[in-house]
Every structure is written in structure tokens, then in C-alpha cells.
């Protein structure tokens, strides 16, 4: 497939405006500026684009809600918090193709009649900050940002807001709190951000990759776009592939490409030709799959049928040398560390589960621990304020469901099934 999102990134100067313009950059914007805002929204709707941040919410529908609210100013926020472990797909856009994102944002802003935008960039990407700020400067200098964009009377201002190390700020309402200078904790919904968001005003939050798809839709039209990949959730998709594969990296492939194709055709297969043991398909918050699930198409429709989720499309491949109890423990340590602390089950439950997993992994598991873990996870599921807690519970449930023998082995033999001589959790 021809690359669009990652087009030209092999060029060392791909981030510069000059290079971007050479490969047809900002042509979609010029086209979009001739269009009525409502028509752009209709086009995005017809294209069937679904949000790439994890939830897969239809972008056109979100925009439609936002455009129906008549309060102004409206804020357009790009979610570049990319915190889901295993995920690094937005990074090449941010670091190597920033003008694509800016172009996507300006088009979106025009469609949404937003005059002020922020890129909420995770604190862990300091280099991306430099690149983005430079690109924004270039865009201002050439009139792609400012009060009168491309001389068409459309105004949009954009700046980078740097996060500071909090996974939960990827959740859109926590992100808004964070931009407002608060502790980034999720807000009560409704009202939804499209009506009451940043500073009480209608706010549209979209993922980097989602916004980067907008120029493509404008340029080739909804119909052609909808023909890419799975028609139920079409378009190009970035997959971050990591852990035990030969060629880890970001791959731009049509939505619906199967896991098998991704792992074996693109990422070079399991490293050293070892045996595939497990795959997490969508980032650490999505339930793990066993090898018999790898023929599943990677999209928002098919993965749920297999008991997992597309999430951010972060494929984590584990071979037979990996201790999954340890992976599960490490994942839980992450959730405990990142729980915002607002709601009881997540704040208290993640730490408790981490305690138990740490014990099991370290060879101090007790009889009944597996049942207890399951029970705690079920006590969290569906009762937390935001999906982070559900994710944490789902991970434990997924690992236990698919690999309970490995947990049992740890408990009964007080050691690891994979690395039989190692006992410590480090």
C-alpha cells in the first residue's frame, strides 16, 4: 500500500516545511478552505473514519456534535499523549511529519470553526516538542496558521502544551483538566467535551493519527478513503510492533490487516525463529491473545469478537522465553503508578493486585491467589470512574484466562515456568 501517514519520512529533512510542500503538502488545506465547514464534516462522516486514540469513536459524529453547539470559542485539541505502553505510532508523525498534523488540524479547525488549538504532547517526547514548535513557527511564517490562513479569512492559532508524565492525561477529560493547569483527573460525563470542555467551552479532542488522516480524506474524497481496509472502519492504520519480533517498528497498513500478516509479513516474524507464545494486540490495556487468535483482522470490529480490543494498535509479541506472570506484574505496576487516584476501586485495587502478582512472581504465591485476583479484578470491572481501571482488571483477567497454568506453576513450584532458575521479581 502507498504510504500516506508516513510518506516521505525516510527523507532526513521530512519535518521541514520545504520538503513537505514538495510532496504536495498543504494542498488538502487549500482545497478544504474552498469547502464549507459542514461539507468537510459530511465528508469525514462519509469516509467512516474512526478515532485512532483507542476508543474508535466515529470522528465525523464527534465533529457533528461539536458543530451543533453554538458556544464560542471552540477548542481543538490534538491528543499526542501517547502513553499506552507498547505504543509509539504517533511519534513518527510528531517527529518526522509534523506538517501533516498541522495541516490536519487546520482543516479540522476550519470544519469545526475553532480558532484556538493545542497539541497536548506527552512530556516524554522532548524532541517532538522541538520539531513541532519549529513546524508551527514555519506554518505561522507562511500563513498556514494565524488570523488569515492562506488569505482565506480563516483564523487558527496553535501551540504545544507539554504534559508531565501522567498516562491518565491521555483520557480526554483528564487531558482537558491538565491543559487547564489542574491535576489531570477524568471529569464527570455528561456533559461531554464537545459541549463543555476546556475552560467550559466546546472542545474537540482527537488523536494525532486521526487528525493526520484528515488531509487524506479531503484529498482523495470519502468514497476512495472508505475503500481502504475494512469498510466498517476504513483507512490506513499505524501499528506499533514491539517485543519479540525481528523488525520492531511502526507499520502503516490498511485497517483490518491480520495480526499474522503484521507479525510475519511485515515485522519479520518472531525473533530468532522462536515459538510465538502470546500477543497483546492493542497496547498493554487490551487483553492478551493466544497464538490461535492471530488470524484475527486488526480493527475495531473483529478484535472485540475475539475478546480483545484494537486500542492503539500496539502489537506486543511474546515468545516462549517470556514469563507472562512477570509481564502481568509489570503491567499492573504500571496501572498502579498511573491510577489517578480519583476512584476507589482503581486506586486501591491496582495496588492490591500488584502486591499479589509481585508475590506470585517472586515465588511467594499462595493457594487461592488466582481466585482472589480474579475476584478483585471483577470487583473493579465496570465500577471505576474511567476505563483505566477496567483496563487494569481486563489485563489480569485476560492473562489468567489464557495462561492460568503458568500462574499455577509459579504458585505451586515457587518458581518461574520459563526461567526456572530465576525467582525474583527484580
Amino acid at each position, binding site marked *: 500500500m502507498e504510504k500516506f501517514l508516513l510518506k516521505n519520512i525516510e527523507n532526513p529533512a521530512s519535518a521541514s516545511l520545504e520538503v513537505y510542500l514538495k510532496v504536495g503538502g498543504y494542498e488538502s488545506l487549500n482545497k478544504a478552505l474552498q469547502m464549507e465547514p459542514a461539507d468537510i464534516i459530511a465528508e469525514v462522516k462519509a469516509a467512516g473514519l474512526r478515532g485512532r486514540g483507542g476508543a474508535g469513536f466515529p470522528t465525523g459524529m464527534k465533529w457533528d456534535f461539536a458543530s451543533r453547539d453554538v458556544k464560542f470559542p471552540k477548542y481543538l485539541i490534538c491528543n499526542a499523549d501517547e502513553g499506552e505502553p507498547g505504543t509509539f505510532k504517533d511519534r513518527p508523525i510528531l517527529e518526522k511529519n509534523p506538517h501533516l498534523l498541522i495541516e490536519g488540524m487546520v482543516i479540522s479547525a476550519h470544519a469545526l470553526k475553532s480558532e484556538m488549538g493545542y497539541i497536548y504532547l506527552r512530556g516524554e517526547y522532548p524532541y517532538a516538542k522541538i520539531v513541532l514548535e519549529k513546524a508551527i513557527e514555519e506554518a505561522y511564517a507562511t500563513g498556514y496558521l494565524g488570523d488569515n490562513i492562506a488569505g482565506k479569512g480563516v483564523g487558527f492559532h496553535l501551540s504545544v502544551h507539554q504534559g508531565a508524565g501522567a498516562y491518565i492525561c491521555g483520557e480526554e477529560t483528564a487531558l482537558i483538566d491538565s491543559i487547564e493547569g489542574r491535576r489531570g483527573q477524568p471529569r464527570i460525563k455528561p456533559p461531554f467535551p464537545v459541549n463543555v470542555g476546556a475552560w467550559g467551552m466546546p472542545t474537540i479532542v482527537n488523536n494525532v493519527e486521526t487528525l493526520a488522516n484528515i488531509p487524506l480524506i479531503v484529498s482523495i474524497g470519502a468514497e476512495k478513503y472508505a475503500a481502504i481496509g475494512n469498510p466498517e472502519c476504513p483507512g490506513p492504520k499505524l501499528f506499533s510492533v514491539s517485543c519479540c519480533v525481528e523488525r520492531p517498528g511502526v507499520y502503516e497498513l490498511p485497517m483490518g490487516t491480520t495480526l499474522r500478516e503484521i507479525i510475519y509479513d511485515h515485522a519479520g516474524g518472531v525473533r530468532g525463529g522462536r515459538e510465538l507464545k502470546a500477543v497483546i494486540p492493542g497496547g498493554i490495556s487490551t487483553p492478551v491473545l493466544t497464538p490461535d487468535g492471530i488470524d484475527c483482522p486488526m480493527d475495531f470490529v473483529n478484535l472485540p469478537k475475539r475478546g480483545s480490543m484494537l486500542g492503539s494498535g500496539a502489537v506486543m509479541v511474546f515468545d516462549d522465553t517470556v514469563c507472562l506472570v512477570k509481564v502481568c506484574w509489570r503491567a499492573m505496576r504500571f496501572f498502579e503508578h498511573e491510577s489517578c487516584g480519583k*476512584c*476507589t*476501586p482503581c*486506586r486501591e485495587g491496582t495496588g492490591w493486585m500488584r502486591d499479589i502478582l509481585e508475590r506470585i512472581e517472586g515465588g511467594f504465591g499462595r493457594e487461592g491467589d488466582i481466585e482472589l485476583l480474579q475476584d478483585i479484578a471483577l*470487583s473493579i470491572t465496570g*465500577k471505576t470512574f474511567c476505563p483505566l481501571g477496567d483496563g487494569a482488571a481486563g489485563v489480569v483477567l485476560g492473562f489468567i484466562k489464557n495462561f492460568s497454568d503458568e500462574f499455577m506453576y509459579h504458585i505451586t513450584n515457587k518458581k518461574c515456568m520459563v526461567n526456572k532458575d530465576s525467582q525474583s521479581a527484580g
Partner: protein
Amino acid sequence: MIKVTIDGRDVELENPVTVLEAAKQAGIIIPTLCYFEGLTPFGGCRLCLVEVEKLPKLQTSCTLMTADGMVVRTETDQIKAARRSVLEFLLINHPLDCPFCDKAGECDLQDLVARYGPEAGRFAEGKRRHPESFDDPIIVRNMERCVLCTRCVRMCNDLQASYSISVTGRGSHSFVEPFSGGKYNCEYCGNCLTVCPVGAIMSRLHRHTYRPWFVEKEIETVCGFCGVGCSMVLQMRENSIIRAIPRAEVGFNKGLLCVRGRFGYEYVESEAQLTTPLMRVDGELKQVSWEEAITFIARRLKEIKDAFGGRAIGAIASGRCTNEDNYMLQKFIRFVIGSNNIDSSARNYYAPAETYLESIFGQGITANLISGIANSDGVLVVGGDPTAINPILGLQIRASWRSGGKVIALGAPGGLKRFVAYELMPTPYSEEIVLSAIVGRLLKGKALSGENTAVEAKLRSLRIPSDEDMEVTGISPEDIARASDDLAGMATSVVVIGPDIIQRERASKNLFLLGAIAYLINARIFLLSERPNYQGVMDMGCLPDFLPGGRPVELEMFRHKIEDALGMKAPEDRGLTLFEMINEAETGGLKALYVMGENPLFNIPDSARVKKALGNLELLVVQDIHLTETAGIADVVLPATAWPEKEGTFTNLERRVQRVRKARRGKLASYGRDDWKIIADIAERFGMTRKYHRVEDVWEEIMHVSALHAGLGYEDIADGKAVWPYSGEPLRGMEGDFSVEGLEDLPHVQDSEKPYLMIERSLYHSGTFSRRSKALLSIYPEPYLMINPVLSERLGLAEGEKARISNERGVLELKVKLNKDVPDGQVLLSNTFEGFGAMGLIGFSTGPVIGSLYIRDNTVRVEKVLV
């Protein structure tokens, strides 16, 4: 109309409310923890989960709004299991030190676990440990017990708007902390104590001595500290107050109290409380019996009256005493002794200001509901910090700000600092020019309504300062324009007037200007009141020129009406004001003074002069609860009952009449007596025939005599909703013309080399009372000279070092406290601590037009004391 079904019950709702609220209306109580009525919803604890048909997940009822047709279940097995698991999670890190925890018995967590379980937790790992924090004198913080409901933080930020605590850290490492991590350094309102559902934030006042089941009785009463009049409940054990708490259901203060109200009560248990009458024998105060004391007073008063006439006798009433006490004193002096010489420290500013404003705009012009401030879209504050003088009123101003209202303060904004739109800091004594300029700008291009012709006529001749005139004020014409335009743009505005702007040479002009601003922008006026019953003092006729009900003494029609009702006569011309009495005492015209619950020797400037004047008297009687400075030089001292020891009523600054109820017996029950009773006793010796058995009898007479209180019985007052005029006669209208000083000129503002000594009106103290409260002393233990960093640098005086302040009136040496909010050219000192009252170094005169006290000769030399 929204119809929902909750647990099979149909509920009809006028407006959409939360499911929790709807259930409550149907009589179904859903358990909650992070929810607290009045606080912004949070939805974090997850205890209030309910099942809603058609929604896949359980929902938090505290955040979910009802929608038509919704079907809700609140107690299914699934829900019970969910609640049990939430509680199990909460208990993970909870220390389970219930036997040792003061909260036991009124702990939400304990009650919830008792109801839902778990009977035993399965958590077998290490619990979070966090040492208890004793950094604060009156609050103890135990973060091990915290359940992170954030009620305290929301209280502190959203309602108290003090922003002193915050959740710090994240996830399971979250803690509720003040900035310092230790000491709160906050306003110590203690409202966080009210909302903490567990024992995480508690009072230290009754640590390990209090258990809820120790409470023998609860007395609903009104706070005795300031003119807001917050409702509170005194929890009693044996004869002691073990806690003062607010109750959301009672009173307009809706569950909020300030530091004085909540923690200051224990002054009444002070060792220093008087227990027996004292009489001066051979120059010394000796204990005597009541009979001896009363007989002596009656005899001496008679002798003086016979020799010099009733007008040689005067009385000082008290803003800390009840309406009944004050009424009785007034009746005694006016109708029994035959003198209109009765006044109170309300003369300092409150009474003359109110009287003057009423003469311009009609009676009741300052009678406005405090709760209304929150709904206003703009507030102008002049003359003092409402959040210190009348804290709960101050909160209403912050609430107005929260909902978008603009707050403009002239002068140091104090506790409103965070809330003012911009700074307007005039140089000392230049406010009059600033206010004139604001009025000038408001008048520009505005047609006058013609409603109040007297005011408008005066406005036409008002001298509007030019830009040059403004120079001395330190405020630019642009700032004036901005402030005026903001004021003009307000739709429902409020003008709050504090003492400092009234205690000025040309008080009438300042008040006129403030009144004019209110008139021009259609604002409601509030007059801050330092004492719980200044208004009652006035209403009861403790004024030289007004009878009970605010009727002028010199108008025959009114006087006769009251004389007829009582069957007694009052003198027909006005009596002496507080200051005139002091002058007369100095010159020998006044022979006897009866002081009830007031301490003029400390609370009026120029203490040395006041002391000399009172020393001239042939008879000085002081009736009080402590041996005050004034009592110390009296001929007879009578021990009275303190605020929680008596029954009666207070009238707050919005004219709400509220019940003060007896909670404890006085120190020695057979000695301390109610003020009104003592006076009635003396009056009887003069042949007053009317007998009063209970305090209700006094009130009944007030109802009968005062036009404002007609038809207002104790039963009507009981719920705190009675605001006068209750029924009966209408308020007085305007009295025709009034005069204003210096309408056509501007004051001469002079630069002073030496700083002005101003009175610090501290949130943590209240006159001389609070110096007996251990809790308040623990926050503000000793007198400080507050100076700003500029001056401190100039004088080389660091925080905590000693300064000497002096002028022709005296010398004080005391510690310095740095405070960057003290305006340039000023130093502040409270008027609280024995021997260190600011009034001692301040001179005064009285304004010719309104007769209020104005402060003068108050510059001081400040030096570093070298050790």
C-alpha cells in the same frame, strides 16, 4: 415533569435532579461517601452505585441526572456486592484504629461497613503508613484514615474558598495536605472537620475526650462573635461545651462557621470569669454579696439623681448582650432614671452610619439578606475586610466571584485578595477623593432617575476631582474609569461598607458617596458589624436619640406612643452619645455611668483620656463576665452570665432576630446573673412595678413597644427565619434633607513621614473576649506589630524582632510580623491584648454631622529595639 421509578416507587420531579436526590425525595437513602450536599459532585468513591435499566453498567447516583422514564434499583444483590467490594478496597489502607479514633460512632465508613460488610478483609499485604500530623494547634490530621473522598478539599476550595489544602501526589500515594505539608496556615474555619466522613481531619480541642455518645444535650443557638449571627449547635456534657458545630439544616449559614465561632467558645470556661460582685472599699475591689452591691448601686444612683438630675447619669449598652438585656438597660435609664444618655460602642461607626444612611434613603436601607450577596454580579467593598470582620458574609462575596461576579475593593482587600478584579490602593486618607472620582464618572452621561431628589441635588454640587486632584491618591484616572465602568455594568450589585471608611473626619461625605454609588448603580448596601448585636442595640433604643423600634425620641408622636404603652415617661430631648458622655465625665457634667458588657477603657481611642474621664465619675458600675480594664477602675463590678449561659435574642446585620439559648450554667450558678435581671432588680428598687419572671416577659414587652417587632413572638423567632419588620407598622421613610460635609471641596491629604497606626481587625480575634480563648490564642498568641517588607527593610526589623512604637500617648514594645498586604505608610496593631491595645496610641474626635468616632493623631514612630 420528569417521571422516574426508583425501587418500584414512582417519583415525579419538577426539574432534573440527580438520581440520588430523586431517591431522597422518594424517601430512599442511597449510601454515599464522597457526596456532600452543597459541594460540587465528585463521583469518586463509587458507593452510591445503582442499577439503571437499559444502561449496561452500574451508575453513580450522585452524578447521574434523572431522565424521563428512567427505572432505577438501589439495593439489589449486585449492588450490595459492589458496595461491599468498594468498602473492602477502602479498608485496605484504613488503619482500623477505631477504638482509639475520636470519630468512632459518627464515622461514615464504620456505619457503611456495619451495613454492607465485609466482615473480614482479604487484604494481607502491608498497609500504607503515615504519621499523624500535630503541626497545628487546633487541627490534627491523620492521613492513614483518609478515604480520599476529597470532601475537605472541595469544602476548602469551593465553599470556604480558602484554597489551603489540596490533594497531593497521585493514585494510592495521594494525600490531602496544606502547602507546607505540615501546618495548615489557613483560615482555620474548620469546615473541613464538618465534612470529613472519617477521622482523618479532627479538632484537637477535645482530642480523646470526646465521643459522640458522650453528648448529653445539643443546644441550637446563635454565635456570639459577630453580626452575621451564624446558627450553631453546642454539644454539651455535664456543664461543658464539648464541641460547637454547624448544622446544614439550621440557619442561613448552611453548615459553615468561621474560626471564631467554631473554636472560640471556650472563653466562657476561662478561669478568669467573674463569680461574685465586687465593690471598691478603701480603693480596692472586695467581694460583696449581691444584696449589698445592688442596694449600694440603687442608693448611689438615687442620691446622684436627686442631687444633679437624671441627666447626670448615663449608661453604655452592649453589642454582645441580648436584645432583652439592652432593652432593659434602656428602659431603666430612660424611663426609670429619666435620662436619654444611653449609647454603646456601636457609636464607633455602626450606629451613626446606619442612622445617617437611613436619613438619606429611609429606614432599613442597610437591611439586606446576606445570602443574596452570592447571587449578585458585583461587589464593591470599602472600609474593611469582610472576610475577617464578618467571615461568613465574606464567603458570600467569594461565592459571588465563583459564579462570575466582579469584586472591587478599595484599599487592602485582605481575605478577598485572590478575588478582587484588580488592586485599588489609595494612599492613606485619600479614599474620599477616589470615591468622588468614581461618582463623577458614574454621573457622566447618565440621566438621573429623579427618585431621590435630595441626593441628586447634592450630587449636582459635588466637587469632582480632576486628574490633577487624583495625583495624591496614587490611583490613576484609568483605574477610576475601569472601576467605575465595571460598577456601572453591574446588574445586581452590592456595596459593603466597613468601619474604616466611617471612622474618618468627614464620615458623612464618605457615606454619602458610598450611598450615591449604591443609588446610581442600584446596589444593596451592607454595613459590617463587629458585634453580634449592634443592630439589636439600636433597635432596642440604646441610642441617645432613638426609642425602641428606631423611633426618634424628639418626635412627640412616637414618644407618647411608647410612654403610653409603658405608663412611664421619658425625657423629651436627645441624650448624650458615648463620646459626649466621656467629655461630660471629663468636665464633671456626668456623675454616674452604668456600663453593661462593654469595655470603653480599651475599646475607645485615647485610653488614657477615657480612663481619666471615667475616674472623675462619682459612680462607675460595670457589669461583665471578666474583670476588664474598665471593670478594674469601677466602683462596683457585677458578674453577668456569658453568651451560652443565657436565653434571649440577637438581631444580626440583616435584621434577622434569632434565639440565643442557654447551654450551660454560669461558673457558680448562685452568683452570675443575666444582665437584664440585674438591671430589673435595681429598677425595682426605684419603684418599677412591672415584674419579669422569664426572659420571654421582657420580649413580650419589646413586641408591644417596638414598632419593628410587633407581632413577633418567640415561637416565630425559633427557626431563625424572622427578619424585621415582621409585621405591624411600616419603616420610617426618609427624613427630608440631610447634610454632608465638604461637598464642594476635597480633603487635604497630607503625606506623613511617620506611618499611621491602624487597627488590625483580625479573623482570629474579637475584641477583648477572644484573649480568653485558648484555641484562638494558639493561632494568634500575642500582640504583633504588622509591618510590610518595605518598612521592615528600612528599619532593619526582621520578623519576630522587637519594635518600639511611640507617640505622645504612649510607648509599646512588641514583636514584629511581616505582612506584605499591609499598605505602605501604615502599621497595624490589633485591639485585643491586654496592655497592647492599638486604641491606646490613637487619638479621636467625633464627626460634627454624624457623631461617629473619627481617628486622628495616629502616626507613630517605629524603631527597632536593640537588645
